[in-house]
């Protein structure tokens, strides 16, 4: 099989005489995912794929082609065929010439041979995750273990050429004990068995924390949200920090400018593409711009909007190394930490609710940040510092801005979270938020 970088270089060479800008991104992977159902594997999925994305521009007209074809001559033929129609269009509103290449520094430690080795036989790793949950006395577990060995090459007509080889692991498990459940997740570049076991252990911990039920009336509560919930909510904030989200009307930052206060001063949130521990780490973006870590929010102040060259040009600034060819993206997110252990945070809460996990976050209005989300695992009512029972499924119905501003304490430990509801890998702590609006069905 040909190297990704060779394919990308051949594509760019074959197209650059006909277009003003050409970028070829070639990714290839060998991936295996074990899906666990009722404590046993329901399927093992494997992907052996190469995919190619080509960006071309001519006279400010742009086109992106994503192709699951790895034959450069076939790709060149298809792209050239699309060219004439492109020229009939009007110029793109969000265009800038591809940037001149600058020096980029590779990130060490993106590859873990243990993952490459475990691809064909992930049984022991899956078994370890399951066993640590069962050790907590749960009835059954469900989840996935996903291992990836991949390559990504980016070549541009301006002369940038870069390739990275990387591995990643994503593991999440949900443990059930009677009507209770607990959930935990982990995403990283390296296969650390202790962290995998912690996924099972923490899921089991929450599933077995109480067997009592509790009830509540709708209203304002102080709430501790776990790193899974923090990760889910800050993923929305990260998405809304993309300049394209702002331009397209999908952002509460439409109402703010850099320098505005948008959160409590304990909240800092960084885009950290160079954190080699997190699974989307990369040294260069999809335009070949070197990546760098940067604050999105720092001590409550909006510090950076995320740009590619096109959105940067549109908004009169410079790329932040976050391309996405059309849509700039955060690579990885990292939250600030506090000084409290998880027990200290619970003591600080005294009366309120602890939420282990959530899903189905939806917004009524991105500009206002009005949203709701539903808890889905241990949702614990705390009175006088003691867990008195599980509330079942409850709903946070509030504004994202309110939650950011009402955050009052952070845990001191960061967890590496990635799963279905936390697509952008996030290092997140536990977070205590005051006066969160909680609702309940009327009938």
């Amino acid at each position, binding site marked *: 099989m040909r190297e990704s970088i060779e394919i990308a270089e051949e594509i760019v060479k074959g197209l650059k005489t006909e277009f003003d800008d050409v970028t070829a991104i070639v990714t290839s992977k060998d991936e*295996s995912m074990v*899906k666990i159902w009722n404590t046993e594997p329901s399927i093992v999925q*494997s992907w052996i794929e190469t995919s190619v994305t080509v960006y071309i521009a001519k006279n400010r007209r742009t086109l992106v*082609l994503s*192709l699951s074809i*790895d034959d450069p001559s076939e790709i060149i033929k298809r792209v050239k065929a699309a060219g004439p129609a492109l020229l009939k269009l009007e110029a793109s509103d969000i265009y800038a010439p591809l940037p001149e290449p600058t020096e980029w520094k590779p990130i060490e430690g993106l590859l873990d041979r243990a993952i490459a080795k475990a691809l064909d036989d992930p049984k022991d790793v899956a078994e370890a995750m399951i066993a640590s949950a069962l050790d907590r006395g749960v009835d059954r577990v469900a989840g*996935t273990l996903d291992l990836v060995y991949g390559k990504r090459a980016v070549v541009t007509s301006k002369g940038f050429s870069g390739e990275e080889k990387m591995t990643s692991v994503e593991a*999440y498990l949900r443990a059930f004990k009677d009507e209770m459940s607990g959930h935990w997740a982990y995403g990283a570049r390296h296969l650390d068995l202790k962290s995998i076991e912690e996924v099972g252990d923490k899921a089991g911990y929450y599933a077995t924390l109480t067997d009592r039920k509790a009830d509540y009336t709708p209203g304002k509560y102080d709430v501790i949200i776990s790193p899974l919930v923090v990760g889910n909510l800050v993923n929305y904030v990260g998405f809304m920090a993309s300049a394209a989200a702002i331009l397209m009307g999908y952002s509460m930052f439409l109402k703010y400018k850099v320098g505005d206060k948008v959160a409590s001063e304990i909240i800092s949130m960084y885009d950290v593409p160079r954190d080699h521990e997190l699974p989307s780490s990369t040294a260069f973006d999809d335009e070949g711009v070197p990546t760098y870590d940067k604050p999105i929010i720092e001590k409550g102040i909006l510090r950076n909007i995320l740009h590619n060259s096109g959105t940067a040009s549109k908004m009169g600034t410079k790329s932040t190394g976050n391309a996405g060819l059309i849509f700039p993206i955060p690579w990885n997110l990292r939250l600030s930490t506090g000084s409290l252990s998880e027990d200290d945070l619970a003591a600080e809460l005294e009366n309120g609710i602890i939420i282990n996990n959530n899903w189905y976050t939806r917004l009524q209005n991105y500009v206002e940040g009005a949203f709701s989300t539903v808890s889905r695992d241990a949702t614990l009512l705390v009175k006088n510092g003691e867990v008195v029972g599980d509330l079942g499924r409850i709903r946070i119905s509030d504004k994202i801005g309110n939650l950011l501003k009402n955050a009052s304490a952070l845990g001191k430990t960061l967890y590496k979270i990635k799963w279905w509801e936390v697509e952008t890998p996030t290092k997140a702590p536990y977070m205590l938020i005051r006066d969160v609006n909680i609702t309940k069905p009327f*009938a």
Partner: protein
Amino acid sequence: MVNVLRLDEGIIKHGVDFALANGASYSEVRYHKNVSDSVLMRGDKIAGVGTEVKEGVGVRVIVDGSLGFGATNDLSREGVERAVKKALIRAKNLSPLRKTPIRFSEERLGKADYAVRFRKSLSDLGLEERVNLGKDLFRAVNESVKDAKVPVTMFELATSEEEKYLVTSDGAEVHSLIPRVSLMLNIILTSSEKGSLQRMMEFGGSGGAELLEDWRPREVVSDEVKRLEKVLLKGVEPPKEKVPLVVGSEVVGLIVHESAGHPMEADRILGREAAQAGESFVKVDMMRNYRVGSDKATVIEDPTIPGSYGYYLFDDEGVPARPRYLYKEGLIYEALHNRHTALLFGTSSNAAARAMNYSSEPIVRMSNTYFQPGDYSFEELLDGIRLGVFMKSYMEWNIDDRRWNMRFVGLEAYLIKDGELDLPVKNPVLEVTTKGFYSRVEAVGRELRFYPGTCGKGEPAQGVPVWFGGPDLRLAKIGLGVSA
């Protein structure tokens, strides 16, 4: 064949035989190609033009009682063999962790070749024509408002073709070709005094470029924006007391998708999706004896509706499709099955196995889900209501992972006073349990309308096109909340 496959049929059949020769007790190979073209516009300016071709094969094998899936876009004979081998090796290595072997139900499987017919080919829909539609809709939005501002509109038009050729070791051989069109518009209206309002409008169906005329998007968008401006500028809070609620067909469609379709997926009921997509309040022993709603509550799932976004005639396991009653006259009735869940339920598959693309395993999915219409006109639904609310559309919604506790926040909504629509209502919240909703249905409209969506499920996540719909409904008195 209705279309010429890029891949030699012989390679696909060889993949099936190769798996059997290497120890599989069952094998299937699905060639699957999705081609889509999209135009993204911000206001009346182009933001992006894209083409995506996703083409490859997905393989499933059962070996030593363990199920394996392999996907590759290397369409050579060696590439397909490699995907089969990976699926076999990895499934075999995990088989010691299985206590019970995976098996599929015996079915009458299809040998068929079908395609959706169209009046105007998607290939005749030029880029300029697509962009001009975006500009027309931008104008329609801006010319429809009087006092509000329109800071942002976003338009996305996508056309696609999905071609599949499925061969299984137990006799299925199905080739299909389905073209689709989808159109999405994001509109924000603002007022310095009243804040902002956001609406995402969607159109979608299977067919050709003629759909863009059939939908009359300029007229529909223009009419709706005029009404939304009134909601923004003149909207009042919903009543504090419990009132009858007339739920518009768009909201009804989403409700049945979330609270009848998803909980009736057999894989959820059995816990296969427990970690991610969740489980279900429905238990195996509830079929045909648990009452979830009034006798007016019937919800149907039907992949075979011509022109629908979720259209197919054979599922991705080769089973012939048919309509199914999920809820019938208020009773939980028939779950959605693939061949694995059907065996575990002791029944037959009803053809609900779908895969998003070649990289995806076929899992239990909805297609087109709708509340069965009744015989009330809209005026008759309103008749006799002294004070109530009509919730016509929504933005925010969610439901818990057992499909019981759900919330829908109205966007376009009106007070009902003395049997007639009155002032617009801003952001009324219907927060209700599944049983609470279906039990309150007291009158059902006669006009059935469908709405498109992309339904997400699976690990990794798969988004498949679906329709959901229904008529307008009247619910008995219920409390309403107000959005934050």
